């Protein structure tokens, strides 16, 4: 058992109202359906300070990324021009086990969302 770096809360942090507010602001109040966007992330973070994630959504103009369990859920927004494939990867900070959420804005003005749970563990007791 590792001892020093206990996560802020052993249980998954509750999604806060900020998340829904950020999504509503991004969508300008338009409805956001489930799906149409992919989030890729490791099942368990190797290091909560640098978690690789990828997002992709065919036909998207922009993708908003949120970390639902961070004190501030904002992570990044990617905008895709005509030459771009609407997909991007980056590395992010996660304060504990939580959902990483992606919301895609499509050219026709519709929106889609998806989430992926990333576990942040104390680690250290493998075999």
């Amino acid at each position: 058992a590792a001892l020093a770096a206990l996560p802020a809360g052993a249980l998954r942090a509750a999604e806060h109202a900020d998340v829904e507010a950020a999504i509503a602001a991004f969508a300008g109040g338009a409805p956001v359906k489930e799906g149409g966007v992919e989030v890729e992330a490791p099942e368990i973070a190797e290091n909560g300070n640098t978690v690789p994630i990828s997002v992709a959504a065919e036909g998207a103009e922009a993708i908003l990324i949120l970390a639902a369990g961070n004190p501030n859920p904002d992570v990044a927004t990617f905008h895709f021009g005509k030459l771009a494939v609407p997909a991007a990867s980056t590395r992010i900070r996660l304060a504990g086990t939580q959902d990483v959420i992606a919301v895609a804005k499509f050219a026709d003005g519709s929106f889609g969302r998806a989430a992926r749970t990333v576990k942040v563990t104390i680690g250290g007791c493998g075999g």
Partner: protein
Amino acid sequence: GGWGRLMAAQSLTQDQLLEFETTGNVTLIHVTDIHAQLKPIWFREPEINIGVGEAAGQPPHVTGADFLQLFGFRPGTPEAYAFTYLDFVALARSYGRMGGLDRVATVVNAIRADRPDALLLDGGDTWQGSYTANATRGQDMVNVMNALRPDAMTSHWEFTYGVDRVNEIVETLDFPFLGANIFDAEWEEPAYEPYRIFERGGVRIAVIGQAFPYLPVANPRWMFPNLSFGVREERMREVVAQVREEEGADLVVLLSHNGFDVDRKMAARVPGIDVILTGHTHDALPEPLVVGKTLLLASGSNGKFVARLDLDVRDGALRGWRHKLIPVFSDVIAPDPEVAALIEAERAPFKAQLEEVLGTTESLLYRRGNFNGSWDDLICNALIEEREADIALSPGFRWGPSLLPGEPITREDLFNATAMTYPAAYRTEMTGEQLKAVLEDVADNLFNPDPYYQQGGDMVRVGGMGYAIDPNAPMGRRISSMTLLRDGSPIDPQRSYVVAGWASVNEGTEGPAIWDVVESFVKRKGVVRIDPNATVRVAGR
């Protein structure tokens, strides 16, 4: 003693153990999780191995009498001794030690005599786990394994010698060190060879390597700071497609250190893998488990078994197979003289240290089991007394052979249970709440119903504190009734307790090496006795 042993040994012959009806055109030989055991050892298989979710009650989560029944073995037979914990001490005295790389070499050579181009594949956890491996930073194992001429290996504990040491050794190997899931953490590009194509018996065989996915979580990340691992199912899908379509592979073999349940899930989700040679969870199954069209082999640990798999591959497809998990009875299988000499040469410089007797054990010392083992009870007792702690924690490692009642405990035996590169025995204060968080975290690594979240160790061993656990409960609700054993008081979430443990993954952890703590304890006691451990109550048992 000797009498029963003679009787039992006489009823077994090397020819019988190696007997095999050669099949098809390809032979794979699989060894895994040898954990640096050059010499024959005792190894008691687990009594408790709980599966969760879809794996509940499925092999390898079947032990003891249920195991015998499932595979049609009778109690008291060589199979009962090799595959289960039943009557372990009595059967050990009858059948003798298992393994020894000189005996493994004999088995491998015999298979090659029958099929000269058989592939020998090593599933990793090869270089760590003994006094001599620690002293030579894996070199003893590299030298001896090289004599067996493996065709490929994958890895886990290898990386606990540090990435530089791994790369230094890999440079010298005549065979590939495979890991399709190992990436450099900066640019996220493959860091090691993902696969190797072999031509055997007119068949193009792709051997894909998969290292332990949770190395940076379960072991100290600072030892290989620029590497990233992970299950990476998508990557596996791509690599399988690549070897099939671009490389024209007729047969796809995954040399895996995922752990059995992770491989079972991967087999069901990634099409196109013919054979998975599983590792890491140290399971031994006498026959492959078939998932869809994929064969999963579980070939044991510590050199106790060698798996032979013959395959009939025609027109790019697997038409048939025959398998045998050969138990390496060390009194029955003759040591290969060349490898035996090599082993002695590796051990010679350390002979005096290895053989020093520290004390005697009155009890069977073993490690495997989901919640405790008597070796870890001994380690926890030593931590509590030598470090003056309320509570001791010992990691749920699955490596480490057994010792029989009445045997001396040598320094070699102690290192077989403790040898690793981050042995500091820390002493710290933790609140009851923090202790609960640690137990919940480890329990979820073991009992998460989704195998991709499982890290493949056992539960952290606890001394000085009892608890109840419900493996099927969600994270945060598995652990209850934590009790300080010294006075029977419930653990207070707010109160601080002095906790001693070892093998912290945090850089800069301070304390004496765990083997020094246990050596001092054993020497002081002279004779150690471990009472049956009833401090963990498991729901439904």
